[in-house]
């Protein structure tokens, strides 16, 4: 009986997505990443239920309190519960990263598709424009954007998105260049498919897998960038709870109350690690050949 089941299993057509999923499940590190990201999503959504205290209530007599039963992770420089602020901070981290990566996927994706598929002078112009944005070292483009636009959650999101767009455009263009030479696209062209049909039916859907991998890895970078901007005072502003801001707020008391700065940093690191593990795992599961490209 089990042998028969096995035989049926063997003869069933194997879907590439199912294969990829099986490979993913076998990868312990990838699963760890999925769990971390899952926990982050749950905390972000359930923040009001999960937070033991109000994140904004300051009890001045408890300022810089060390971790105790009352304040599980201690209190910050104004006497606010660090754990509750971390939980609410996960909302900001996740929201900025998801929106920024979403914007970058749409805009960068469109640029990459058009550039890679049409080639010629369109490609040349678009890619030179992307080169210009990429010429600004990490963080400095975002700083320039924030310097001009100002700070806050939305402007930080825009700054992070602008930094991510050229990276997405380049990767998706690279994908399109390999896909458009594949036989099924050439066949579609030979059969007289219009350019738009070739692009949207044959090329674009096949970039989705690498885009998912890339987006996951860029979620990690987006969270880091938001935290860095907020740490500098150029990102999310008080009273919003941002992890980077929390690290900055404890800086002046590092010597006497190191937990105020260091604990939020652990949250940043674990979250970023989670997205990196997830992205690595997805890449290895979907297409290990992408390894050298990202």
């Amino acid at each position, binding site marked *: 009986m089990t042998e028969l089941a096995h035989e049926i299993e063997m003869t069933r057509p194997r879907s590439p997505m199912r294969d990829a999923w099986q490979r993913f499940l076998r990868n312990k*590190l990838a699963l760890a990443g999925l769990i971390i990201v899952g926990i982050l999503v749950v905390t972000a959504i359930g923040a009001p239920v999960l937070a033991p205290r109000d994140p904004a209530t300051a009890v001045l007599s408890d300022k810089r309190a060390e971790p105790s039963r009352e304040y599980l992770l201690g209190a910050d420089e104004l006497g606010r519960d660090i754990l509750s602020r971390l939980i609410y901070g996960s909302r900001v981290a996740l929201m900025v990263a998801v929106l920024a990566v979403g914007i970058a996927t749409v805009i960068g994706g469109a640029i990459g598709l058009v550039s890679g598929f049409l080639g010629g002078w369109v490609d040349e112009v678009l890619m*030179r*424009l992307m*080169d*210009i*944005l990429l*010429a*600004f*070292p*990490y*963080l*400095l483009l975002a*700083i*320039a*954007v*924030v*310097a*001009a*636009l*100002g700070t806050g959650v939305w402007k930080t999101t825009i700054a992070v998105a602008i930094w991510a767009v050229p990276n997405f455009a380049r990767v998706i263009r690279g994908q399109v260049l390999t896909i458009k030479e594949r036989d099924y696209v050439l066949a579609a062209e030979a059969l007289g498919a219009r350019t738009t049909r070739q692009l949207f039916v044959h090329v674009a859907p096949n970039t989705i897998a690498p885009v998912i991998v890339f987006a996951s890895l860029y979620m*990690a970078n987006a969270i*880091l960038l938001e*935290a*860095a901007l907020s*740490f*500098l*005072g*150029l990102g999310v502003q008080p009273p919003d709870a941002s992890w*980077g801001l929390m*690290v*900055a707020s404890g*800086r002046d008391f*590092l*010597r006497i109350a*190191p937990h105020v*700065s*260091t604990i*939020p*940093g652990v949250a*940043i*690191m674990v979250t*970023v*690690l989670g997205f*990196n*593990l997830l992205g*690595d795992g997805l890449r290895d599961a979907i297409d290990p050949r992408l*390894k*050298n490209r990202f």
Partner: protein
Amino acid sequence: MRRYVIRRLIGLIPVLLGVIFVTMLTIELIPGDPVAIMLGENARQEQVEALRAHLGLDQPLPVRYVKYVGNVLTGDLGRSIQTNRSVLAEIMDVWPNTLLLAIAAMALAIVVGIAVGIISAIRPYGIVDTVARVLALVGLSMPIFWLGLVLLYAFAYYFRIFPVGGTGSARHYVLPAVALATPSIGVLSRMTRSSLLDVMGEDFIRTARAKGLKGAKIITGHALRNAMIPVMSVVGLQFGQLLGGSVLTETVFSWPGLGRLTVRGIFARDYVLVQGAVLTFAMAFVFINLLIDLSYAYIDPRIHYD
């Protein structure tokens, strides 16, 4: 080779013009009247007019752009609104500190990153490799400003081994360079490992094995040089990370560099200074990448440039 260098330099021109344009936009995009914002509420009317004229804001954008490009080419980045000194002079005062820190971090990242990558590749998927890969991923997930604070607490406050901040001696470099280099160590070790493993699958490696050579010898004698090309291109990109990251490390370690000057400039609304600083970072990054591209020729004699 010379023709290739010239072609690359010409190819840089549109990128640099674009970089200058984008930097110019930072003032352009400030909502409201940038001059009023920069000078604050208490500025006198003459001051406002003088700065407006200095920045040329009364002229149309294309005219201003051409002028700005001309100024940049002659090294005139305007005057700092705070100090009224030439922005170029302000930048040059601190730029060496930033560059030296970035170079120190880069050297550290290259040595440690490539070493870890090699160790990983000797026995892929073994225990050492697994530990090294996880550590590499932890390293590149590290927020460097936080790592800096942790190092500061541990090695400057708790164990008083290193100074709390500032420059002066080689000891001042240790903590900021380690904080700055850590994510790059992760990136470079991953790249070295995967590039080495690719090369290890090639025929000439099999020949070397057939000759009787063993693991480490094959890597150092045959595979490494071939595996370095992709690693080198990542080194170039990492330099951008280090220059950008210097904004964070300099803030944490009170390092008198361009990164800290930039942040201060933003808070002081000294946009002329910020423009100059951002431009300097971008130009440095562009030229470092050019140098690295050119250095490929020395690593890989198979590449011909004509």
